[in-house]
């Protein structure tokens, strides 16, 4: 079994600009009005002037124990042994939406002809891209940089093998990571605010 890949998100550095979701849609050839594989939302709380508006960028979390994989009646969804990326085989997917109901984060989308599509960590390009592909390689070994990582203006999003991400993460973020099913390491902001895990 290869090393699991994960996303890393630094709340302090996300400026809510949506470059991640725009570049994701562009990389995967998705029209502007199609459902996004990566979304940005501002979690706004408080009453003027004591307010907060925390921008959060989210995609498929490539969960350690992926609930979408478990409910898929056609075994089209695979949590890959080699890199932990969750992919979908669109040739066998029947568009039943079970994965959509099981996913706590609203990651699966169905507007590619009714068949499920979602983030594949840019293992491939386009809907279904990534399924059956060789193990994820790092950029220095010829792998692509996920579009969201490559285009994050604030340098808030990273992706890579968990061991590498760990080196950059704080202890608090790693503790939370150990307790959450989502395969994402999240840093709280300077005020200690952290909107993850965040249900869509």
């Amino acid at each position: 079994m290869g090393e699991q890949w994960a996303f890393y998100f630094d709340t302090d550095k996300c400026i809510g600009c949506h470059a991640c979701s725009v570049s994701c849609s562009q990389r995967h050839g998705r029209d502007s009005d199609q459902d996004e594989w990566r979304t940005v939302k501002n979690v706004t709380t408080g009453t003027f002037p004591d307010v907060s508006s925390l921008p959060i960028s989210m995609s498929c979390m490539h969960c350690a124990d992926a609930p979408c994989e478990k409910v898929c009646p056609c075994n089209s969804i695979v949590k890959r042994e080699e890199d932990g990326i969750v992919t979908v085989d669109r040739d066998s997917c029947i568009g039943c939406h079970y994965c959509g109901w099981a996913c706590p984060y609203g990651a699966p989308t169905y507007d590619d002809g009714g068949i499920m599509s979602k983030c594949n960590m840019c293992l491939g390009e386009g809907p279904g891209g990534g399924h059956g592909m060789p193990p994820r390689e790092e950029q220095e070994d010829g792998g692509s940089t996920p579009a969201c990582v490559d285009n994050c203006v604030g340098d808030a999003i990273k992706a890579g093998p968990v061991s590498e991400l760990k080196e950059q993460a704080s202890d608090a973020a790693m503790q939370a990571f150990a307790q959450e099913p989502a395969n994402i390491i999240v840093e709280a902001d300077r005020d200690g605010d952290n909107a993850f895990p965040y249900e869509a």
Partner: protein
Amino acid sequence: MSSQSGDGLTRRSLLKAGGAAATMAALGGCVDDVARQVGFGTDRTATPIADANTAFGNCWMCCHNCAQEVKVTDDGQVIGITGVDGNPRGSAGPGTEGTLCPKGLAQLDKTHDPERIKQPYIRVDGELQEATWEEAFEYTAERLQEFDDEHGAETFLDAGSWAETPIFRTIWRDLYGTPERIGRGVHVCAGPTFVAGGMMGVGSNNRIPDYQNSEYLIMWGRNPLEAFAGQFEAKGLLKAIEENNATLVTIDPQYTETAEKSDEWLPIAPRTDGALALAMAHVIIEENLYDAEFVENHTYGFEAYREAVADKTPEWAAEITDIEADKIRQIARGFAEAAPQAGISIWTGTAQQANGWKASQNITALNGLVGNIDRPGGLRLWKDTPTADPFEVCEWTPDDKATSETIQGVDLPNNAAGKEKALHKYDEYNEYPFRHVEGIAHNLVPEMVENGHINGIYCHHDMPLKDGNADAWMEALDQMDLVIAVDAYWNGVTRNADVVFADATQLEKDTIGTGSWSAYSEHQWVIGGKAATEPQFNTKSDWDILIGIAEEMGWGEYFPWEDHEEFIDDQLLELDITLDELCSGEENFELVGEYGYEQWREEDGPAFSFDLDQVPPFVQAANEAGMSTVPDWQPPGTYGDELSEAYPLEFFDIRSVFFSHGSDQGIDRMLDQFAKKNELDDKDYRGNYLHINPVDADERGIETGDMVTIESETGSGELMAHVTELIRPGFVTSEYGFGAGSAQQDYEGMNTMKLHAKQMDPITGQPDRHIAVEVRGGV
């Protein structure tokens, strides 16, 4: 120039309908067949971006030159776009990731956007008709000749802004011979910031502090994490926080992304920035926190400044600004103690108000007081990259001489010499103090058209209908005898033009970008871009458009270059590099010169002036406006609107990270993201939103998603309400560049400047965008 408006179905709503139908079919029928028919099957081998060719560009969406790396297929389709690591405008400096912001990424969509203007048009019998390029050039030349005969070339207004080539200045001023010119910078963006800064000795560098070396940063009426002039601003700010543990203070009546990342957010009462700055100076002087050595040896007018702030206590300012006195003391001390590694950024927020001159002067004065002028982390005197004037350095061989002798330089005439600008020439404008300081004012153009002093316009990368007196400008465009427009999208100017030149967009042309401020505090720089693909549809680059006009006018001899690349190579002679060299290799930028801090030591005279009594044009303008020459307090309403019972809310228009200068409102992807940001993407509406506090909304029975009417004393419009706690009660805002005349096909939303009459800063003529309004629900 007949008025035409945009209406009908948008491409977006058509796509939506199409998408819904496909989904229905998929759910009801054979899934595999549908998936195959619509081309959504799995192709595991397809990695089109990885296989495409690489080209470099120079982002022009907001004209601030973040470097681009693009992926292009063999048949010229741009299919991928991203930033260039370490580039001066789109990274945080050496060894850092280069990116593009969302509107920069949208250049990919813009390049192949079927909604672009695809070919030239000329007006025949009152209607715009498709024309060949030859017909358009001939028509233009004829009309320009007739215009000169009938009205005089000096009544033609050059409104070229941020063009990818500078030769529009040569054509309209030197060759056609008009002294009239308007740009977007001083005249509608931030006149007081630019001009006050210039007169005080720091140029317009009061906008961009030396972020990366700073320990204390005040974003005053600025939101550089969303509305940046190149991503290096946002990245530099984040870097200062991460690496220097810098304190970030945001002063803004609205809670922004920058406020979210700030240690302190001061939701100041609108238009009271000048009072806060005076009180900060009071604290800094009273507590001896200022840089006495710098003030004594390198500034002018300190005693007058000290006197002016003597009674401006924090308690006095607290009453005006709605910021507690202790908070004012805290910020003043924090700023002064961190100096010189402390910077302030101002731009449009404190300038687009009729009392913006004093706000800008008072705030800029704080820099001189703490001695941060051109010191690391303070107010940096950014240095431009020198380029050669191709008209002086070019070497060419005339066609019409039987010799192969090479000539250096082009002997350009100056056909505008001796011609006076209308603002200075005619008595009609004597009531405007800014005539002593400026050559034109945006809000006066309609009046000048009415008076017959301006009769035509060349409008290029310039969207006058989003600024100032929009309604009067629309009438003025109708009234002008000749409107020449160069643009990529249909909007209120192109629809009303006599000639429309279909402009290729930036990835379809050769460009260079230079400037001063960047992620490199001590280097000058240049970024290059060679056309990544051919001009799309039947468009041409602005260089080819202007050369086409010039040749038809008989001015071809003044342009001996084969193409724009040759012209750019002459510009680059100064830097001993060619465009080709710049764009070969792994990146497309060069650092070309190094310069140190404290450059004022090399100059004679004071580095900084608090009092402007030694600047004659300002003294004349200030006298007429009834304004002192030192920092001073001018309450809201001294020149602009006062709130009243009928118009109790204060309106101001704002920017969004998805749009720039009103030129990309036509791009669906940006409109959709903008709706998502406001969590209103489930509505069909894709216009701008009226941000209003629940206190004001409840009083008026308004809820998020309602269409509301906003009304000032002179105008009104409708737009969708966005009720939010992130804005100060009594203050309402909306994004500019939408509605009537915009680049959005259906003109959805509201042109915020329909609320504006002619309010201006008396010293620069800067349109005042703070307007007294009332908002009503139930449209």
